[in-house]
């Protein structure tokens, strides 16, 4: 699959005054500038709920028009909080097959226009009707996963705190992050309880933001090595295991097989930590550690920028902010920038050859894994 990410654009995450279309175009323009404004013949746009959050539909045509992509082809893709990853996974095979020469993939969300209670209600629509009927929320179900994980593996809540502390320390090096200040584990532990054992600082924040990248049929340092995705039962209780996300496990297996690689050949990852416990599960689900061992990796610094397997050098979703539709794509953009040597102060200690992005849609019901790496050609 000779397709590579040849440019990326990431806007500032946080509360933004611009419209969703403007945010998408801002990131898109930065990515297009990165390829010297060469023509693009495919535009794939993603957001989770732009109609509800931002009152806008028909986004692909509107973005194409505003970016001057005259009569390009395109469409919008949706997979809940993994929408951005889904857009990338939709675009890659179209470019690989030769149907299009160059694709611009853009994903974003504009969430802060709505009151936070309304945002929570919209996000919960990704859950099963039965779960909503019982008063479950995203953090509530994440807390149940955490509760089971901590009990099953005898892990303390300090592992959850360590995930947030690491995310915020990394975000302090990311000029686009919503939370560019470090926090201590005591601050995490003293933050307001949301759904015990989860506290405010264990949960990602409502945010505005967008990311974009360009895909071309070429080799390069950020070549697409393999893609994998999988759905799982919508109801958490119907899944065989509460302490892992099977959809990530299957997606990772598919991505490794497509890339003819194993987990041992991956140097670092951007993982979906919308809630701190997810980072522990994610690290296990992509096969870097065994079940129940993720906590120790975060506690002993193995996932730090200079650790054995750096995780979320961009600050992750906890530090960067979570404009839901954008998150799956900004992860891939940040992996590509690490591989292309474009991460500036976020660069991990050893220049990586292969990186992985893992995105969760809903409460782990539709997950994506993307493997990027050097496919030669040198083209930067």
């Amino acid at each position: 699959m000779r397709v590579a990410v040849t440019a990326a654009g990431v806007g500032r995450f946080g509360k933004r005054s611009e419209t969703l279309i403007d945010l998408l175009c801002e990131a898109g323009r930065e990515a297009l500038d990165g390829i010297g404004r060469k023509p693009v013949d495919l535009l794939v746009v993603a957001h989770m709920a732009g109609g509800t959050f931002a009152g806008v539909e028909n986004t692909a045509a509107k973005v194409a028009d505003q970016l001057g992509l005259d009569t390009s082809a395109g469409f919008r893709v949706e997979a809940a909080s993994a929408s951005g990853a889904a857009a990338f996974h939709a675009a890659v095979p179209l470019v690989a097959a030769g149907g299009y020469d160059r694709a611009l993939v853009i994903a974003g969300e504009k969430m802060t226009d709505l009151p936070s209670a309304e945002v929570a209600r919209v996000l919960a629509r990704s859950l099963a009707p039965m779960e909503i009927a019982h008063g479950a929320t995203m953090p509530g179900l994440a807390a149940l996963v955490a509760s089971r994980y901590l009990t099953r593996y005898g892990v303390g809540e300090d592992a959850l705190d360590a995930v947030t502390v690491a995310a915020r320390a990394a975000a302090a090096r990311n000029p686009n992050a919503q939370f560019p200040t470090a926090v201590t584990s005591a601050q995490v532990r003293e933050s307001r309880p949301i759904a015990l054992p989860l506290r405010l600082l264990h949960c990602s924040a409502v945010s505005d933001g967008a990311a974009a990248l360009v895909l071309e049929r070429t080799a390069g340092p950020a070549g697409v090595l393999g893609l994998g995705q999988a759905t799982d039962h919508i109801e958490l209780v119907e899944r065989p295991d509460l302490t892992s996300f099977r959809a990530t496990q299957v997606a990772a297996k598919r991505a490794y097989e497509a890339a003819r690689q194993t987990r041992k050949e991956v140097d670092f990852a951007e993982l979906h930590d919308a809630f701190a416990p997810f980072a522990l599960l994610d690290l296990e689900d992509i096969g870097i550690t065994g079940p129940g061992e993720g906590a120790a990796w975060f506690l002993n610094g193995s996932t730090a920028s200079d650790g054995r397997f750096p995780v979320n050098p961009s600050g992750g979703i906890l530090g960067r902010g979570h404009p839901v539709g954008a998150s799956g794509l900004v992860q891939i953009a940040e992996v590509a920038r690490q591989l292309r040597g474009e991460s500036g102060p976020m660069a991990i200690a050893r220049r990586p050859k292969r990186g992985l992005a893992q995105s969760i849609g809903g409460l782990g019901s539709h997950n994506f894994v993307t493997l990027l790496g050097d496919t030669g050609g040198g083209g930067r």
Partner: protein
Amino acid sequence: MSEVPPLAIVRCDHCQARFLPHPGLCPRCGSDELVRTEIPAHATVLAATELLAPAAGWPSPHRLAILEATESVRILAIVRGPLPTLGSVVAVRRTNDLYEVVLPSPG
């Protein structure tokens, strides 16, 4: 232990999966060979949480637990009292399409 009526569940005759009544086909294998059956309404508490930022219309705190009944059927249930101890066995009841942990009667 409280006396509670058995819980209705569904068994898939094709893949033998067991789950709570559920719209559509067998979530595991897609078969329509679904048979209604019953299990005792006692279950082990696998996980529990207290929501202090509950969804609109719910009291704060709103408490939820995931229970595991016989034949590996798992249930998301509301707890209208103190959270039960993880690993303990509780009775569960379905009322108006909602599952609730049955609280021990006072005294």
